[in-house]
Protein backbone atom coordinates (compact mmCIF):
# COMPACT_ATOMS: atom_id res chain seq x y z
CA UNK A 1 0.00 0.00 0.00
CA UNK A 2 1.51 3.28 -1.12
CA UNK A 3 1.50 6.35 1.08
CA UNK A 4 -0.75 9.33 0.38
CA UNK A 5 1.34 12.35 -0.63
CA UNK A 6 -1.50 14.74 -1.46
CA UNK A 7 -4.88 14.83 0.17
CA UNK A 8 -7.90 16.88 -0.90
CA UNK A 9 -10.83 16.82 1.47
CA UNK A 10 -14.15 18.27 0.38
CA UNK A 11 -12.58 21.18 -1.50
CA UNK A 12 -14.77 24.15 -2.44
CA UNK A 13 -13.32 27.13 -4.31
CA UNK A 14 -15.18 30.24 -5.37
CA UNK A 15 -14.30 33.28 -7.42
CA UNK A 16 -15.80 36.70 -6.88
CA UNK A 17 -18.32 37.25 -9.66
CA UNK A 18 -17.00 39.68 -12.25
CA UNK A 19 -18.69 43.05 -12.20
CA UNK A 20 -18.40 45.99 -14.58
CA UNK A 21 -17.97 48.34 -11.70
CA UNK A 22 -14.94 47.35 -9.63
CA UNK A 23 -15.50 50.06 -7.04
CA UNK A 24 -19.06 48.94 -6.40
CA UNK A 25 -17.84 45.38 -6.18
CA UNK A 26 -15.18 46.31 -3.68
CA UNK A 27 -17.57 48.16 -1.40
CA UNK A 28 -20.72 46.09 -1.64
CA UNK A 29 -21.43 43.78 1.24
CA UNK A 30 -23.13 40.87 -0.46
CA UNK A 31 -20.56 39.40 -2.76
CA UNK A 32 -21.76 37.19 -5.55
CA UNK A 33 -19.68 34.12 -6.01
CA UNK A 34 -19.04 31.65 -8.71
CA UNK A 35 -18.21 28.17 -7.48
CA UNK A 36 -15.45 26.69 -9.61
CA UNK A 37 -14.81 23.60 -7.52
CA UNK A 38 -17.57 21.87 -5.62
CA UNK A 39 -16.58 19.29 -3.10
CA UNK A 40 -13.54 17.61 -4.64
CA UNK A 41 -12.29 14.77 -2.53
CA UNK A 42 -9.42 12.52 -3.55
CA UNK A 43 -5.86 11.59 -2.71
CA UNK A 44 -2.66 11.19 -4.68
CA UNK A 45 -0.34 8.39 -3.68
CA UNK A 46 3.42 8.61 -3.68
CA UNK A 47 4.87 7.37 -6.95
CA UNK A 48 1.61 7.07 -8.83
CA UNK A 49 0.64 8.72 -12.10
CA UNK A 50 -2.70 10.40 -11.68
CA UNK A 51 -4.70 11.80 -14.55
CA UNK A 52 -7.21 14.58 -14.09
CA UNK A 53 -9.56 14.92 -17.02
CA UNK A 54 -12.45 17.21 -17.79
CA UNK A 55 -13.76 19.46 -20.53
CA UNK A 56 -12.86 23.10 -20.88
CA UNK A 57 -14.35 25.06 -18.01
CA UNK A 58 -14.66 22.06 -15.76
CA UNK A 59 -12.38 23.58 -13.13
CA UNK A 60 -9.06 22.05 -14.15
CA UNK A 61 -7.14 25.34 -14.06
CA UNK A 62 -8.56 26.19 -10.67
CA UNK A 63 -7.55 22.79 -9.42
CA UNK A 64 -4.02 23.36 -10.74
CA UNK A 65 -3.86 26.71 -8.97
CA UNK A 66 -5.07 25.14 -5.78
CA UNK A 67 -2.56 22.31 -5.91
CA UNK A 68 0.38 24.60 -6.62
CA UNK A 69 -0.64 26.78 -3.67
CA UNK A 70 -1.66 29.90 -5.58
CA UNK A 71 -5.10 29.96 -4.05
CA UNK A 72 -6.71 28.54 -0.94
CA UNK A 73 -9.97 26.64 -0.75
CA UNK A 74 -12.97 28.44 0.72
CA UNK A 75 -13.89 25.21 2.43
CA UNK A 76 -12.21 21.90 2.93
CA UNK A 77 -8.57 21.07 3.41
CA UNK A 78 -5.67 20.52 1.09
CA UNK A 79 -2.54 18.87 2.37
CA UNK A 80 0.77 18.04 0.76
CA UNK A 81 3.57 16.09 2.28
CA UNK A 82 6.84 17.90 1.58
CA UNK A 83 7.21 20.56 -1.09
CA UNK A 84 4.17 21.81 -2.97
CA UNK A 85 3.98 20.60 -6.56
CA UNK A 86 4.89 23.12 -9.22
CA UNK A 87 3.37 23.51 -12.61
CA UNK A 88 5.70 22.15 -15.25
CA UNK A 89 4.72 24.26 -18.23
CA UNK A 90 6.37 27.55 -17.62
CA UNK A 91 7.98 30.49 -19.30
CA UNK A 92 5.67 32.91 -17.57
CA UNK A 93 8.60 34.65 -15.96
CA UNK A 94 10.63 35.03 -19.13
CA UNK A 95 12.15 38.43 -19.67
CA UNK A 96 12.37 38.80 -23.45
CA UNK A 97 15.34 41.15 -23.36
CA UNK A 98 17.55 38.78 -21.38
CA UNK A 99 19.54 35.84 -22.67
CA UNK A 100 18.44 32.22 -22.42
CA UNK A 101 20.87 31.54 -19.59
CA UNK A 102 19.69 34.48 -17.54
CA UNK A 103 16.13 33.33 -18.10
CA UNK A 104 16.96 29.83 -16.92
CA UNK A 105 18.07 31.32 -13.61
CA UNK A 106 15.07 33.58 -13.38
CA UNK A 107 12.59 30.84 -14.14
CA UNK A 108 14.23 28.24 -11.95
CA UNK A 109 14.35 30.67 -9.03
CA UNK A 110 10.68 31.43 -9.58
CA UNK A 111 10.04 27.71 -9.38
CA UNK A 112 11.53 27.80 -5.93
CA UNK A 113 15.01 26.41 -6.57
CA UNK A 114 18.22 27.46 -4.89
CA UNK A 115 20.89 29.16 -6.98
CA UNK A 116 23.41 26.46 -6.18
CA UNK A 117 21.15 23.77 -7.55
CA UNK A 118 20.70 25.73 -10.77
CA UNK A 119 24.47 26.18 -11.14
CA UNK A 120 24.86 22.42 -10.88
CA UNK A 121 22.17 21.65 -13.44
CA UNK A 122 22.84 24.44 -15.93
CA UNK A 123 24.79 22.26 -18.36
CA UNK A 124 22.10 19.60 -18.42
CA UNK A 125 19.35 22.15 -18.97
CA UNK A 126 21.13 23.76 -21.92
CA UNK A 127 21.91 20.40 -23.42
CA UNK A 128 18.34 19.14 -23.09
CA UNK A 129 16.90 22.29 -24.65
CA UNK A 130 19.04 21.82 -27.81
CA UNK A 131 19.27 25.58 -28.11
CA UNK A 132 23.06 25.58 -28.68
CA UNK A 133 24.36 29.10 -29.28
CA UNK A 134 20.91 30.59 -29.05
CA UNK A 135 21.18 30.21 -25.28
CA UNK A 136 23.33 33.38 -25.25
CA UNK A 137 20.83 35.38 -27.30
CA UNK A 138 17.87 37.34 -25.93
CA UNK A 139 14.72 35.28 -25.57
CA UNK A 140 12.79 37.77 -27.75
CA UNK A 141 14.66 36.35 -30.74
CA UNK A 142 13.35 32.84 -30.01
CA UNK A 143 10.51 31.15 -31.82
CA UNK A 144 7.59 30.03 -29.67
CA UNK A 145 8.78 26.45 -29.92
CA UNK A 146 12.23 27.43 -28.68
CA UNK A 147 10.74 29.25 -25.72
CA UNK A 148 8.69 26.23 -24.80
CA UNK A 149 11.79 24.05 -25.04
CA UNK A 150 13.72 26.32 -22.73
CA UNK A 151 10.87 26.37 -20.23
CA UNK A 152 10.34 22.64 -20.26
CA UNK A 153 14.06 21.87 -19.97
CA UNK A 154 14.45 24.18 -17.00
CA UNK A 155 11.54 22.62 -15.17
CA UNK A 156 12.27 18.96 -15.84
CA UNK A 157 16.03 19.05 -15.27
CA UNK A 158 15.61 20.51 -11.82
CA UNK A 159 13.87 17.31 -10.86
CA UNK A 160 10.81 18.35 -8.88
CA UNK A 161 9.40 15.85 -6.41
CA UNK A 162 5.90 16.02 -7.77
CA UNK A 163 5.36 16.80 -11.45
CA UNK A 164 2.25 18.75 -12.25
CA UNK A 165 1.77 18.68 -15.99
CA UNK A 166 -0.70 20.85 -17.83
CA UNK A 167 -0.96 19.62 -21.41
CA UNK A 168 2.60 20.78 -22.07
CA UNK A 169 3.29 18.06 -24.53
CA UNK A 170 1.79 20.09 -27.32
CA UNK A 171 4.95 22.17 -27.52
CA UNK A 172 7.81 22.12 -29.97
CA UNK A 173 8.18 19.87 -32.99
CA UNK A 174 7.36 16.20 -32.88
CA UNK A 175 10.96 15.16 -32.17
CA UNK A 176 11.08 17.39 -29.10
CA UNK A 177 7.61 16.29 -28.04
CA UNK A 178 8.84 12.75 -27.98
CA UNK A 179 11.84 13.82 -25.94
CA UNK A 180 9.55 15.50 -23.41
CA UNK A 181 7.40 12.44 -23.19
CA UNK A 182 10.46 10.23 -22.67
CA UNK A 183 11.72 12.53 -19.95
CA UNK A 184 8.39 12.28 -18.16
CA UNK A 185 8.29 8.51 -18.59
CA UNK A 186 11.75 8.36 -17.10
CA UNK A 187 10.51 10.26 -14.04
CA UNK A 188 7.68 7.77 -13.77
CA UNK A 189 10.24 4.94 -13.84
CA UNK A 190 12.06 6.66 -10.98
CA UNK A 191 8.90 6.40 -8.93
CA UNK A 192 8.15 10.12 -9.07
CA UNK A 193 4.62 11.27 -8.47
CA UNK A 194 3.09 12.69 -11.63
CA UNK A 195 -0.20 14.52 -12.00
CA UNK A 196 -1.35 15.05 -15.57
CA UNK A 197 -4.16 17.51 -16.19
CA UNK A 198 -5.77 17.44 -19.61
CA UNK A 199 -8.98 17.41 -21.62
CA UNK A 200 -7.91 14.68 -24.00
CA UNK A 201 -7.82 11.09 -22.94
CA UNK A 202 -4.99 10.02 -25.28
CA UNK A 203 -1.95 10.42 -23.07
CA UNK A 204 -3.94 9.60 -19.94
CA UNK A 205 -4.66 6.17 -21.33
CA UNK A 206 -0.97 5.57 -21.97
CA UNK A 207 0.62 6.64 -18.71
CA UNK A 208 -1.87 7.07 -15.88
CA UNK A 209 -2.53 4.56 -13.11
CA UNK A 210 -5.67 6.27 -11.89
CA UNK A 211 -7.97 9.01 -13.15
CA UNK A 212 -10.11 11.70 -11.59
CA UNK A 213 -12.83 13.05 -13.87
CA UNK A 214 -14.20 16.46 -13.04
CA UNK A 215 -17.21 18.03 -14.66
CA UNK A 216 -18.47 21.56 -13.96
CA UNK A 217 -16.50 21.69 -10.77
CA UNK A 218 -17.82 18.43 -9.45
CA UNK A 219 -15.99 15.20 -9.11
CA UNK A 220 -17.80 12.88 -11.48
CA UNK A 221 -15.74 9.76 -11.00
CA UNK A 222 -12.46 8.46 -9.60
CA UNK A 223 -10.89 5.15 -10.32
CA UNK A 224 -9.10 2.85 -12.65
CA UNK A 225 -7.83 4.53 -15.84
CA UNK A 226 -9.44 2.15 -18.30
CA UNK A 227 -12.86 2.33 -16.75
CA UNK A 228 -13.00 6.11 -16.28
CA UNK A 229 -11.54 6.96 -19.67
CA UNK A 230 -14.13 4.75 -21.33
CA UNK A 231 -16.93 6.56 -19.52
CA UNK A 232 -15.39 9.94 -20.34
CA UNK A 233 -14.97 9.16 -24.04
CA UNK A 234 -18.53 7.94 -24.26
CA UNK A 235 -19.78 11.05 -22.48
CA UNK A 236 -17.82 13.29 -24.86
CA UNK A 237 -19.10 11.40 -27.89
CA UNK A 238 -22.66 11.84 -26.70
CA UNK A 239 -22.05 15.58 -26.35
CA UNK A 240 -20.91 15.87 -29.92
CA UNK A 241 -24.09 14.41 -31.35
Amino acid at each position, binding site marked *: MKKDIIELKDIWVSYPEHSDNPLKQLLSKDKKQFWALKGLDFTVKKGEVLGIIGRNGSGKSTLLKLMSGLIEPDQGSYQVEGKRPMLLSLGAGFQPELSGIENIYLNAL*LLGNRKKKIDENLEAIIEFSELDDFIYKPVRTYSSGMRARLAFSTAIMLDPEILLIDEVLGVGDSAFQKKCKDAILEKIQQDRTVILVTHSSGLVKQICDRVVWIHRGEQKAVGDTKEIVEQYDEFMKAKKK
Partner: protein
Amino acid sequence: MFKKLLNDWRNNKDLLYHLTVSELKSNTARTYLGTLWWIVDPILYMAIYYFLVGIVLNRGGDDYAVYLFTGLIPLKWATACMVDATTAISSKARILQQVYVPKLTFILVRLGVNTFKFLVSSVIMVLFLYFSGVDLTINALNFFILIVFNLLLLLPIMIIMAHIGVYLKDIKNMMQYISRTLLYLSPVLFRMESVPANIRDLLYLNPFTDFLVSYRNIFLYQGQPLWDNLFIILGLSLVLLFIGLRILNKYDKQYAKVI
Protein backbone atom coordinates in the same frame (compact mmCIF):
# COMPACT_ATOMS: atom_id res chain seq x y z
CA MET B 1 3.05 36.49 10.02
CA PHE B 2 6.62 37.41 11.00
CA LYS B 3 7.72 33.82 10.87
CA LYS B 4 6.37 33.52 7.33
CA LEU B 5 8.12 36.77 6.38
CA LEU B 6 11.43 35.48 7.64
CA ASN B 7 10.94 32.21 5.81
CA ASP B 8 9.97 33.96 2.59
CA TRP B 9 13.03 36.15 2.86
CA ARG B 10 15.32 33.16 3.25
CA ASN B 11 13.77 31.34 0.32
CA ASN B 12 13.51 34.27 -2.02
CA LYS B 13 16.53 36.47 -1.59
CA ASP B 14 18.26 35.02 -4.65
CA LEU B 15 15.09 35.52 -6.66
CA LEU B 16 14.79 39.08 -5.41
CA TYR B 17 18.31 39.88 -6.50
CA HIS B 18 17.91 38.28 -9.93
CA LEU B 19 14.57 39.94 -10.59
CA THR B 20 15.94 43.35 -9.67
CA VAL B 21 19.04 42.99 -11.81
CA SER B 22 17.06 41.64 -14.74
CA GLU B 23 14.55 44.47 -14.51
CA LEU B 24 17.39 46.99 -14.53
CA LYS B 25 18.98 45.23 -17.48
CA SER B 26 15.80 45.00 -19.52
CA ASN B 27 15.02 48.64 -18.85
CA THR B 28 18.09 49.75 -20.71
CA ALA B 29 18.39 46.92 -23.22
CA ARG B 30 18.04 47.96 -26.82
CA THR B 31 18.40 51.67 -26.06
CA TYR B 32 21.27 53.44 -27.72
CA LEU B 33 22.57 55.07 -24.57
CA GLY B 34 21.96 51.99 -22.44
CA THR B 35 23.05 52.42 -18.83
CA LEU B 36 24.07 56.02 -19.58
CA TRP B 37 20.36 56.80 -19.28
CA TRP B 38 20.67 56.50 -15.49
CA ILE B 39 23.01 59.48 -15.62
CA VAL B 40 21.36 61.44 -18.44
CA ASP B 41 17.88 61.10 -16.96
CA PRO B 42 18.32 63.16 -13.77
CA ILE B 43 20.36 65.80 -15.58
CA LEU B 44 17.73 66.31 -18.28
CA TYR B 45 14.97 66.25 -15.71
CA MET B 46 16.59 68.97 -13.72
CA ALA B 47 17.55 71.00 -16.81
CA ILE B 48 13.89 71.29 -17.81
CA TYR B 49 12.78 72.78 -14.50
CA TYR B 50 15.85 74.98 -14.26
CA PHE B 51 15.10 76.36 -17.70
CA LEU B 52 11.46 76.97 -16.82
CA VAL B 53 11.72 78.49 -13.35
CA GLY B 54 15.27 79.74 -13.22
CA ILE B 55 15.55 81.23 -16.70
CA VAL B 56 12.13 81.77 -18.27
CA LEU B 57 10.34 82.93 -15.12
CA ASN B 58 13.57 84.14 -13.52
CA ARG B 59 12.20 83.31 -10.04
CA GLY B 60 14.91 81.02 -8.79
CA GLY B 61 17.23 83.31 -6.93
CA ASP B 62 20.84 82.54 -6.05
CA ASP B 63 22.04 78.98 -6.17
CA TYR B 64 18.78 77.84 -7.72
CA ALA B 65 20.45 74.99 -9.61
CA VAL B 66 21.75 73.26 -6.49
CA TYR B 67 18.52 73.99 -4.63
CA LEU B 68 16.48 72.42 -7.39
CA PHE B 69 18.73 69.42 -7.79
CA THR B 70 18.64 68.48 -4.09
CA GLY B 71 14.85 68.60 -4.15
CA LEU B 72 14.07 66.98 -7.47
CA ILE B 73 16.21 63.89 -7.05
CA PRO B 74 14.70 62.61 -3.77
CA LEU B 75 11.16 63.51 -4.82
CA LYS B 76 11.55 61.81 -8.18
CA TRP B 77 12.65 58.69 -6.32
CA ALA B 78 9.54 58.80 -4.17
CA THR B 79 7.07 59.45 -6.96
CA ALA B 80 8.61 56.86 -9.29
CA CYS B 81 8.31 54.30 -6.49
CA MET B 82 4.68 55.12 -5.85
CA VAL B 83 3.64 55.09 -9.50
CA ASP B 84 5.53 51.86 -10.18
CA ALA B 85 4.03 50.24 -7.12
CA THR B 86 0.49 50.47 -8.49
CA THR B 87 1.30 47.78 -11.06
CA ALA B 88 3.82 45.82 -8.99
CA ILE B 89 1.42 42.92 -8.40
CA SER B 90 -1.20 43.44 -11.09
CA SER B 91 1.29 43.37 -13.97
CA LYS B 92 2.65 40.00 -12.86
CA ALA B 93 -0.56 38.15 -13.67
CA ARG B 94 1.13 35.57 -15.88
CA ILE B 95 3.62 34.59 -13.21
CA LEU B 96 1.09 34.65 -10.39
CA GLN B 97 -1.25 32.35 -12.31
CA GLN B 98 1.44 29.70 -12.46
CA VAL B 99 3.84 29.89 -9.53
CA TYR B 100 3.51 30.91 -5.95
CA VAL B 101 5.71 33.91 -5.19
CA PRO B 102 5.30 36.02 -2.05
CA LYS B 103 3.82 39.25 -3.34
CA LEU B 104 6.18 41.39 -1.29
CA THR B 105 8.95 40.21 -3.62
CA PHE B 106 7.56 42.16 -6.57
CA ILE B 107 7.14 45.29 -4.49
CA LEU B 108 10.69 45.04 -3.16
CA VAL B 109 11.94 44.61 -6.74
CA ARG B 110 10.31 47.86 -7.82
CA LEU B 111 11.64 49.56 -4.71
CA GLY B 112 15.11 48.16 -5.42
CA VAL B 113 15.13 49.25 -9.06
CA ASN B 114 14.10 52.80 -8.22
CA THR B 115 16.43 53.02 -5.26
CA PHE B 116 19.34 51.93 -7.43
CA LYS B 117 18.52 54.66 -9.95
CA PHE B 118 18.21 57.12 -7.09
CA LEU B 119 21.65 56.19 -5.78
CA VAL B 120 23.19 56.74 -9.22
CA SER B 121 21.42 60.11 -9.43
CA SER B 122 22.68 60.95 -5.96
CA VAL B 123 26.26 60.43 -7.01
CA ILE B 124 25.67 62.83 -9.90
CA MET B 125 24.02 65.23 -7.48
CA VAL B 126 26.92 65.18 -5.04
CA LEU B 127 29.42 65.69 -7.86
CA PHE B 128 27.33 68.59 -9.14
CA LEU B 129 27.22 70.15 -5.67
CA TYR B 130 30.96 69.74 -5.26
CA PHE B 131 31.76 71.40 -8.56
CA SER B 132 29.25 74.18 -7.88
CA GLY B 133 31.34 75.11 -4.86
CA VAL B 134 28.94 73.88 -2.17
CA ASP B 135 30.74 73.24 1.10
CA LEU B 136 30.06 69.55 1.85
CA THR B 137 30.69 68.72 5.50
CA ILE B 138 30.61 65.59 7.63
CA ASN B 139 26.88 66.28 8.11
CA ALA B 140 26.30 65.14 4.54
CA LEU B 141 26.94 61.59 5.75
CA ASN B 142 23.54 61.72 7.44
CA PHE B 143 22.38 61.02 3.91
CA PHE B 144 22.63 57.28 4.54
CA ILE B 145 20.42 57.46 7.61
CA LEU B 146 17.96 59.64 5.74
CA ILE B 147 17.76 57.04 2.99
CA VAL B 148 16.81 54.35 5.49
CA PHE B 149 14.09 56.55 7.00
CA ASN B 150 12.85 57.41 3.53
CA LEU B 151 12.81 53.75 2.44
CA LEU B 152 10.78 52.82 5.48
CA LEU B 153 8.20 55.42 4.52
CA LEU B 154 8.10 54.41 0.86
CA LEU B 155 7.74 50.67 1.41
CA PRO B 156 4.39 50.73 3.23
CA ILE B 157 2.99 53.27 0.78
CA MET B 158 4.09 51.01 -2.07
CA ILE B 159 2.54 47.94 -0.47
CA ILE B 160 -0.80 49.68 -0.13
CA MET B 161 -0.62 51.06 -3.69
CA ALA B 162 0.21 47.62 -5.06
CA HIS B 163 -2.72 46.10 -3.21
CA ILE B 164 -5.19 48.71 -4.44
CA GLY B 165 -3.74 48.39 -7.94
CA VAL B 166 -4.95 44.80 -8.16
CA TYR B 167 -8.57 45.71 -7.52
CA LEU B 168 -8.75 49.22 -8.91
CA LYS B 169 -6.76 49.76 -12.08
CA ASP B 170 -7.60 53.48 -11.96
CA ILE B 171 -5.12 53.95 -9.16
CA LYS B 172 -2.27 54.11 -11.66
CA ASN B 173 -3.79 57.09 -13.47
CA MET B 174 -4.64 58.71 -10.17
CA MET B 175 -1.12 58.20 -8.91
CA GLN B 176 0.30 60.11 -11.85
CA TYR B 177 -1.69 63.15 -10.72
CA ILE B 178 -0.98 62.62 -7.06
CA SER B 179 2.73 62.55 -7.75
CA ARG B 180 2.44 65.71 -9.85
CA THR B 181 0.59 67.35 -6.98
CA LEU B 182 3.28 66.24 -4.55
CA LEU B 183 5.84 67.95 -6.73
CA TYR B 184 4.02 71.23 -6.32
CA LEU B 185 3.09 70.76 -2.65
CA SER B 186 6.64 69.97 -1.59
CA PRO B 187 9.36 72.57 -1.57
CA VAL B 188 11.00 71.32 -4.73
CA LEU B 189 10.56 74.25 -7.08
CA PHE B 190 9.90 76.96 -4.46
CA ARG B 191 11.61 77.86 -1.19
CA MET B 192 9.97 77.41 2.18
CA GLU B 193 10.74 81.06 3.08
CA SER B 194 8.66 82.32 0.18
CA VAL B 195 5.57 80.51 1.48
CA PRO B 196 3.17 82.55 3.71
CA ALA B 197 3.82 81.64 7.32
CA ASN B 198 0.32 80.32 8.01
CA ILE B 199 0.57 77.79 5.21
CA ARG B 200 4.14 76.83 5.94
CA ASP B 201 3.27 74.69 8.96
CA LEU B 202 0.66 72.87 6.93
CA LEU B 203 3.27 71.96 4.35
CA TYR B 204 5.30 70.21 7.02
CA LEU B 205 2.42 67.76 7.44
CA ASN B 206 3.43 66.41 4.07
CA PRO B 207 6.19 63.98 5.06
CA PHE B 208 8.08 64.64 1.86
CA THR B 209 8.49 68.26 2.89
CA ASP B 210 10.34 67.14 6.00
CA PHE B 211 12.55 64.87 3.97
CA LEU B 212 13.37 67.50 1.36
CA VAL B 213 14.17 70.10 4.00
CA SER B 214 16.40 67.53 5.71
CA TYR B 215 18.21 66.59 2.51
CA ARG B 216 18.92 70.24 1.87
CA ASN B 217 20.01 70.88 5.45
CA ILE B 218 22.71 68.27 5.25
CA PHE B 219 23.88 69.01 1.70
CA LEU B 220 23.49 72.76 1.28
CA TYR B 221 23.46 74.32 4.72
CA GLN B 222 25.93 72.14 6.67
CA GLY B 223 23.12 71.35 9.11
CA GLN B 224 21.26 68.43 10.64
CA PRO B 225 18.12 66.66 9.39
CA LEU B 226 14.82 67.55 11.09
CA TRP B 227 15.30 64.69 13.54
CA ASP B 228 12.14 65.32 15.61
CA ASN B 229 9.85 65.31 12.60
CA LEU B 230 11.64 62.37 11.04
CA PHE B 231 11.25 60.21 14.12
CA ILE B 232 7.53 60.91 14.21
CA ILE B 233 7.36 59.94 10.54
CA LEU B 234 9.39 56.82 11.26
CA GLY B 235 6.91 55.80 13.93
CA LEU B 236 3.99 56.31 11.58
CA SER B 237 5.85 54.47 8.81
CA LEU B 238 6.32 51.43 11.00
CA VAL B 239 2.64 51.38 11.93
CA LEU B 240 1.75 51.70 8.26
CA LEU B 241 4.23 48.97 7.36
CA PHE B 242 2.62 46.64 9.84
CA ILE B 243 -0.81 47.36 8.40
CA GLY B 244 0.48 46.91 4.84
CA LEU B 245 2.07 43.57 5.63
CA ARG B 246 -1.13 42.43 7.31
CA ILE B 247 -3.10 43.27 4.16
CA LEU B 248 -0.63 41.45 1.90
CA ASN B 249 -0.73 38.46 4.17
CA LYS B 250 -4.50 38.36 4.27
CA TYR B 251 -4.93 38.64 0.50
CA ASP B 252 -1.91 36.48 -0.38
CA LYS B 253 -4.03 33.69 -1.87
CA GLN B 254 -6.72 35.97 -3.28
CA TYR B 255 -4.69 37.88 -5.87
CA ALA B 256 -4.36 34.88 -8.20
CA LYS B 257 -8.15 34.73 -8.39
CA VAL B 258 -8.80 38.28 -9.46
CA ILE B 259 -5.79 39.29 -11.52
